[in-house]
């Protein structure tokens, strides 16, 4: 079977308790592993403020999965998301070679907040903004 690396981020409603969140995350993890996906990396971002309201909520619990799986698994996972009321949003992306390299560095903590990506870009930011204002 053809294997791809995918990355899924989804948002759970903030009304859940800690235990319920764990349970929901475990449930989706199970759908992944049951369908033969190999979990590469996962991140729990915790409660975050949303940029705009979704279902009258201003916050949400973010969870990220990165996994190696067959192409068919995405549809299975997304039907699960659709059927589950606790999920407010989800996004699945396929990782290309650059994204793979990036996420590997990210999972090792090399990218962090201000490291490889932001540091060189930050110094140029002022210049870029200066040109913008002209």
């Amino acid at each position, binding site marked *: 079977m053809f294997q791809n690396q995918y990355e899924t*981020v989804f*948002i759970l409603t903030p009304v859940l308790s800690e235990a319920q969140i764990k349970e929901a995350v475990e449930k989706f993890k199970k759908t992944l592993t049951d369908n033969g996906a190999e979990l590469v990396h996962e991140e729990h971002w915790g409660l975050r403020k*949303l*940029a*705009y309201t*979704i279902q009258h909520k201003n916050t*949400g619990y*973010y969870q*990220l999965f990165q996994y190696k799986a067959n192409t068919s698994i995405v549809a299975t996972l997304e039907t699960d998301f659709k059927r589950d009321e606790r999920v407010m*949003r989800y*996004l699945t*992306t396929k990782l290309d070679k*650059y*994204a793979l*390299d*990036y996420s590997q560095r*990210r999972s090792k903590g090399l990218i962090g907040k201000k490291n490889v*990506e*932001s540091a*060189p*870009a930050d110094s*140029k*930011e002022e*210049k*870029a903004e*200066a*040109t*913008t204002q*002209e």
Partner: protein
Amino acid sequence: MSLVNDPVDRKDTARKKYCRFKKAGIKFVDYKDPNFLLKFVNEQGKILPRRLTGNSLKFQRKVSVAIKRARHLALLPFVADGLK
């Protein structure tokens, strides 16, 4: 005041634009980093054109896809007022 069209000295307009991704060697634009993507939107949350950011076409496309993904996940607003 002379009526002759004097050449105007524009010192700081002559700066050459460049693609910051090419220059910094960034290969992948991450949609999960809203603070970085904030550089490519105006204060209403609209994507800035290439003519202002100086991005190469390749990376402008990647930036715009990343911003749209970030918007879907409520990391960036679709519409905003006074984002900066």
